[in-house]
């Protein structure tokens, strides 16, 4: 019986296919990922253990000084929202198309309806330098409540998230909660937090209290 000769094969593999796949994946991730929108105010969010992820929400941000800012992610929703707000506040009818596009381009805003035409007329550099005062949310003039309510009309399933600064006063947060519960009748919302660093120590905490009889 003749000996079967095993041909000696090269150990190096053709990497072209793998390279193709990996670059395809790379392009996919690069194209699908979105840049984080520039923030009108820096907000230092508090820590918690919570790990619920949110997507497609309207965010009410509360800055250090208690000024409230409003933002929604989808551009189409912003157009619809502006139309709805125009019905509620007839003075917005005077907005030019340029001002409307400027509004739709804003990721986050914090100004009153009265200041709106003037702020939307600013060019990007001026806008960046302008310090926004926040959306009025007193019980007498609660524009924030209207923004939330009208957004809910645009998309009924949109969730609400509050993004507060660590040091912002409870007073401002209470006002936001007031706008949500009393004006917009929303009783379920989310608070945006980061994962705390000491979560490992807190999860091992439960002692005798975990036992139920």
């Amino acid at each position, binding site marked *: 019986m003749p000996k079967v000769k095993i041909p000696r094969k090269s150990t190096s593999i053709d990497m072209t296919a793998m390279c193709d796949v990996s670059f395809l994946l790379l392009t996919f991730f690069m194209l699908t990922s979105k840049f984080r929108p520039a923030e009108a105010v820096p907000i230092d969010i508090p820590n918690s253990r919570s790990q619920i992820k949110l997507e497609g929400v309207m965010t009410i941000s509360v800055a250090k000084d208690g000024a409230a800012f409003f933002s929604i992610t989808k551009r189409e929703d912003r157009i619809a929202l502006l139309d709805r707000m125009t019905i509620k506040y007839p003075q917005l009818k005077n907005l030019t198309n340029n001002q409307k596009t400027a509004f739709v381009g804003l990721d986050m805003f914090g100004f009153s309806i009265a200041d709106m035409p003037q702020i939307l007329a600013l060019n990007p550099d001026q806008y960046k330098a302008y310090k926004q005062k926040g959306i009025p949310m007193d019980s007498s003039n609660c524009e924030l409540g209207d923004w939330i309510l009208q957004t809910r009309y645009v998309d009924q399933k949109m969730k609400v998230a509050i993004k507060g600064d660590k040091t912002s006063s409870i*007073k401002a947060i209470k006002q936001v909660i007031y706008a949500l519960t009393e004006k917009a009748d929303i*009783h379920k919302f989310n608070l945006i937090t*980061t994962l705390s660093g000491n979560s490992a120590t*807190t999860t091992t905490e439960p002692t005798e209290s975990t036992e139920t009889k």
Partner: protein
Amino acid sequence: MAELNTAEGGNKKHGGKVRSKKMSTKVDLTPMVDLAFLLITFFMLTTTLNKPNAMELNMPKKADVPEDKIPINEELLLNIILDKDNTVWWYEGQTANNLKKTIFANEKGIRDIIYWKQRKLAKDYGNKDTMIVLIKATDDANYENMVDALDEMDITGIKRYAMQDVQAPELEAIKNGGTGTTVPE
């Protein structure tokens, strides 16, 4: 197969005609694949980390109709009042005459008080989940305190809790300084 051939001056000694050596067109793609996967990992990690975490908060609807108001057992109540400089006041029941001062801490703080109350209710009522916590905040407290308090509910596994406005008798009791700082064992 996929190897880069480097020119070796083998033909030089013959002199005269310089023959260009036929080189393999194949390039070793391994480093390129390495780089691509490194970038993929980077993009995958950064995109998922960018999504914010959130905690849920449910606020009660205003009970306008008297039938909606359910009387609760006073002994199940634990009140937590958040105040300035990260201090926390707490008392049991409905009257703030035994108000005590404490802090946010893993030990000897508000968490131990909640555990203590849970143990007590487990003994008296056979179930620690009967406990109700009311979180109140004075205007001097900051937002971080509120999130910390809600996080504490999650850590200690409190099923029933609510945010409420601080009442005038409580403010009065805080002004008087409470009745001590002891953490019950």
